């Protein structure tokens, strides 16, 4: 009985595929939609801006006096242009240094990125401006321009 049913089912399946009937035209055809309308309906936007904060180090120690160390990066932007913030520093008994960098990161080729960087080092009161391009692979810098102002 089971064998007969399986045979009947497989015959029905093969004859249904052999005589494929195209689907009926859509009952409610979609009118042409702009990208904005699609984004609204599908909630799917590849031009959306997004950000990330990554904390590599965040330490605080309350011994005789407070020791602090941090290393934090954050970015915000789209796929091609990003504003990047990097800050790291230590505040200890024998060492006291902090640095903040603001970068504009732009992709100009699949493996080449442009970075325009303003960096400030608080303790030494320096300010540097670096523009450069780097290759993602194999990882060597291509071009670099650097200017530095020292406000002593």
């Amino acid at each position, binding site marked *: 009985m089971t064998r007969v049913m399986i045979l009947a089912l*497989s015959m029905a*399946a*093969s*004859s249904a*595929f*052999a005589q*494929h009937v*195209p*689907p009926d*035209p*859509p009952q409610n*055809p*979609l009118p*042409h*939609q702009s*990208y904005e309308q699609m984004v609204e309906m599908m909630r*799917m*936007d*590849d*031009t959306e801006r997004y950000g990330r904060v990554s904390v590599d180090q965040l330490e605080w120690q309350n011994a005789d006096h407070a020791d602090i160390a941090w290393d934090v990066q954050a970015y915000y932007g789209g*796929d091609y242009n990003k504003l990047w913030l990097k800050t790291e520093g230590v505040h200890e008994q024998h060492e006291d240094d902090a640095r903040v960098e603001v970068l504009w990161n732009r*992709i100009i080729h*699949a493996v080449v990125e442009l970075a325009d960087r303003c960096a400030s080092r608080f303790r030494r009161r320096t300010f540097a401006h670096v523009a450069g391009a780097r290759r*993602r692979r194999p990882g060597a810098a291509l071009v670099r321009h650097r200017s530095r102002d020292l406000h002593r």
Partner: protein
Amino acid sequence: MRTAQPRTNLDDPGPGLRDNGRRVLTYADLHTIGGPIDRREPGRDLVLHVTGHMQRFIWSFDGRKFSEAPPLPFTYGERLRITLVNDTMMTHPIHLHGMWSEVEDESGAFLVRKHTVTLHPGQQIRYAVTADAPGNWAFHCHLLYHMEAGMFREVHVA
């Protein structure tokens, strides 16, 4: 990055499943009974590269995200062949809405009828489509993070 010499064989289980001591089923093991729904030879070829940038999480067809690409026009009633070449280092299940994807084997003969066609890194797959459903349809990677990042096209059948 372009895959200069994409592999076309369908009997490779893909990265992570090769030579693991088990028998892994592949597309070469699938055969649809009854042949293709449409026996016409495809009238044209549409080649699409599956592209992406891992670090920036940009995903696209032919290097263009959905927001940067016009819809793909299909003529109502035509039989066409889609060739997908995976230039990325990930596997992508590609889904064409509204119409069947009839995967061909290496020799160009009909093999299996599918909704979603999975492409391994560096692989090329060809399949025939009969545009028998008028309207606007989605064509996209079914990893939804990739779809939302731009690996999506509209297909207009008219």
